[in-house]
């Protein structure tokens, strides 16, 4: 074990530094092509680096990068386990396609350097949130992510709805992250550390003094419960779980279309990922939150399960009554986030570990399917909106006939989210269903099916409008849509691939979950931390 893998540590810092330069270049360079190329090259490099990280982590187990050469609880560390590596690679690759798509979408807009700066900032925030091994650094990265997101949502400054959505999203979001800061104060006050691996040790082994951070202060069970409850409010806000979903249907559609894809496809993942980190890695099933006197963890998980179900139902039902295609897709995000949270809440102390693992696998698999599918749908919808000049489903009627290839991709995306057999969405939903059956909760399992069934109506409405309905007026033949069509077609192929490779993917993702969130995985997460401490401590 040498200095650690540089691509893990340097990724996010280099990304923001590269974003820093853009506005300055914007003063001197007026050609838009330059900025498009810059963004695509940078995101491609990041995608390559995250893939490399994924390979290394897959082969060698969790990797830890200690910034400044300080042993972890003293300094900040990035700790990437299998789950983080998978999600990091997913984020970077989807972001690459979003950047490519932006080349087409943003070409007619002003303020391109600002746009790409914020987009790269968003990516830095996403990668940082996923890779970080420090709870306070997570707060900072959440803010990097959020401020870019607020800025991008309000980017169409002439649209009253966009600015209003951004301000609503921003004010409540800022309050939410402050609440997370308060949760961190509780955590530091009682555990005396902010490192996730260190917290994972201290939350499990009651009488322990870890290197550097020592023991406990005060009543740790109550403090942990308070901290987890407060921080879960924030994470569910970030991923728009009911009842914190109110901002999403306004904010996501009003953003520029590539950003809608990024927000719906990637930003909501962060909430789910951080909840997994908090409830499985740090305060897991054998932690202080589950001791007989304080069964807080089960209560929290039950609450998440119920909220997940409600969220799934509300999203699916609201989808049916939408008249605006981007709003429809936004509500679909609410519904799918509900499904993901249902999966990750199946970690009660009464449920067999195999079922928990299966549910978490389903959650992760569904997260991936949803990211790819939703990014594809938003981008394809952007093409149709470009043709029809409106977002209303009535106005879009028949617009898909002018772009048949994009329409094909669009259909594949819908079928993916709907959960039709050859595609990935089916397998993840089926896995979720069987996990609940295995856990002895058939009612919840049936609810998964019901949510999917309701959402079919909404999807069918959109598909019908775009292709089958006769056009209300004659559309011009679209020009220059080769690039976006290529992007959505490629993503459609990925969707199909996610379905075809389902058996392999299921086992691979199951291994991922086992290697990161289940007992063995948490142990290796902690071991990497202890090994680094030993390596870096003074003699």
């Amino acid at each position, binding site marked *: 074990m040498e*200095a*650690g893998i*540089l691509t893990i*540590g*340097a990724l*996010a*810092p280099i990304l*923001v*530094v590269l*974003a*820093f*330069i853009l*506005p*300055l270049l914007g*003063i001197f360079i007026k050609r838009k092509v330059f900025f498009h190329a810059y963004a695509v090259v940078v995101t491609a490099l990041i995608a390559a680096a995250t893939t490399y990280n994924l390979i290394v982590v897959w082969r060698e187990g969790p990797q830890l*990068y*200690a*910034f*400044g*050469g*300080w042993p972890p*609880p*003293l*300094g*900040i560390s990035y700790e990437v386990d299998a789950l983080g590596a998978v999600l990091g690679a997913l984020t970077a690759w989807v972001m690459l396609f979003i950047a490519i798509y932006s080349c087409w979408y943003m070409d007619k807009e*002003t*303020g391109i350097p*600002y746009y790409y700066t*914020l987009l790269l*900032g968003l990516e*830095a925030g996403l990668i*940082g949130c996923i890779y970080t091994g420090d709870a*306070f*650094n997570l707060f*900072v*990265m959440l*803010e*990097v992510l959020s*401020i*870019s997101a607020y*800025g*991008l949502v*309000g*980017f*169409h*400054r*002439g*649209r009253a709805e966009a600015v209003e959505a951004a301000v609503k999203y921003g004010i409540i979001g800022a309050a939410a992250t402050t609440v997370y800061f308060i949760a961190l104060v509780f955590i530091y006050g009682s555990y*005396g*550390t902010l490192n996730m691996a260190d917290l994972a040790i201290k939350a499990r082994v009651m009488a322990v003094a870890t290197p*550097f*951070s*020592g*023991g406990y*202060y*005060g009543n740790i069970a109550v403090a942990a419960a308070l901290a987890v409850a407060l921080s879960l409010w924030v994470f569910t806000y970030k991923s728009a779980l009911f009842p914190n979903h109110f901002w999403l249907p306004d904010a996501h559609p009003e953003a520029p279309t590539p950003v809608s894809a990024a927000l719906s496809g990637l930003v909501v993942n962060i909430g789910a990922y951080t909840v997994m980190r908090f409830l499985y890695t740090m305060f897991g099933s054998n932690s202080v939150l589950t001791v007989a006197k304080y069964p807080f963890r089960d209560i929290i998980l039950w609450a998440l399960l119920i909220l997940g179900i409600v969220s799934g139902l509300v999203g699916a039902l609201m989808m049916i009554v939408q008249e605006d295609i981007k709003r429809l897709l936004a509500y679909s995000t609410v519904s799918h986030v509900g499904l993901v949270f249902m999966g990750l809440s199946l970690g009660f102390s009464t449920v067999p570990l195999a079922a928990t693992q299966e549910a978490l696998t389903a959650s992760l698999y569904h997260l991936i399917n949803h990211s790819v599918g939703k990014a594809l749908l938003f981008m394809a919808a952007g093409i149709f909106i470009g043709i029809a000049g409106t*977002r209303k489903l009535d106005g879009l009627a028949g617009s898909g006939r002018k772009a048949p290839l994009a329409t094909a991709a669009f259909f594949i995306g819908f079928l993916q989210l709907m959960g039709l057999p050859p595609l990935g969405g089916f397998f993840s939903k089926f896995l979720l269903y069987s996990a609940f059956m295995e856990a002895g909760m058939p009612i919840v399992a049936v609810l998964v099916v019901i949510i999917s069934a309701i959402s079919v109506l909404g999807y069918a409405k959109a598909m019908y409008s775009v292709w089958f309905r006769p056009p209300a007026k004659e559309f011009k033949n679209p020009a220059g849509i080769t690039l976006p069509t290529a992007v959505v077609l490629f993503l459609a192929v990925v969707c199909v691939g996610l379905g075809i490779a389902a058996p392999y993917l299921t086992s691979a993702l199951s291994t991922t979950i086992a290697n990161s969130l289940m007992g063995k995985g948490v142990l290796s997460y902690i071991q990497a931390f202890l090994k680094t401490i030993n390596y*870096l401590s*003074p*003699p």
Partner: protein
Amino acid sequence: MRRAYKYAVLTAMIVSTLALALAASAGGLGYALPFPAVRNLAYWYLRTTYNPFMPKFTASAPEAVTAIVWDYRGLDTLFETSVFFLAIIASMALMRGIEVRAPESINLSKYGMSAIVKTVTRITVAIILAASASIALHGQLTPGGGFQGGATAAVAPLVIIVIFSLYFAVGSGIKKKSMLTLRTLGLLGIGVTSFAVIVAGLILGKAAYVFQNQPKEAAPIGLPSHILGVPMGGTLLLFNIFEFLAVAAGFTIVFLLLSVPEESVRKVLEGGEGHD
């Protein structure tokens, strides 16, 4: 009636605060007083921030807070700066295309506040800038640092804009573009400094870390720890200088954008651009 209601609520809150405090101090909650000793982690920070007896395990800055901010937890601070940067960029994106133009044949003395205030400000600006530079340059020795200094320095452009008017500020070189350039250079300085040691390590073929400052057992290279007989904390002094520039310029951009007259903004917005 409403007023009475308001004061009743306020009184109730004060009384309940006192009652809760009474309950807590009587032992109703876990603890009511601060702990007698700092947490173990803090003990390590206090022991290692400036410690000549552990040359391979110190940040070499007597100021523990600055040492944590820029060395132990330097990554946080880099991203904190980027949050501020992104907020400014997002604001500039909202105000894109809006330039400050002084009215034709402008008589600067007609704008701004009275001549007495203006004259006093002429002197205070120099004092403010010198004091803020002192805060920033002594960041590794006494309380203060790049951000504190930069925020204090930002008073200077702010009072110039408020007292002398925006047009005077723009005329005397406080422009959006130059401030953006300064800000970017400051940030790039921070970026370069955080990678300085690792680049040196790659060249020398030695192990090093991002954000490394002083030599460590596992990574035996670092920046010098003293300058002219005074601790400079390796990278900390550089970080403070760059952060000072970046923050002062950033605030100036914010105030330049905020003080653009509303009429000229409306003219640009009604030009009919920015629609989906």
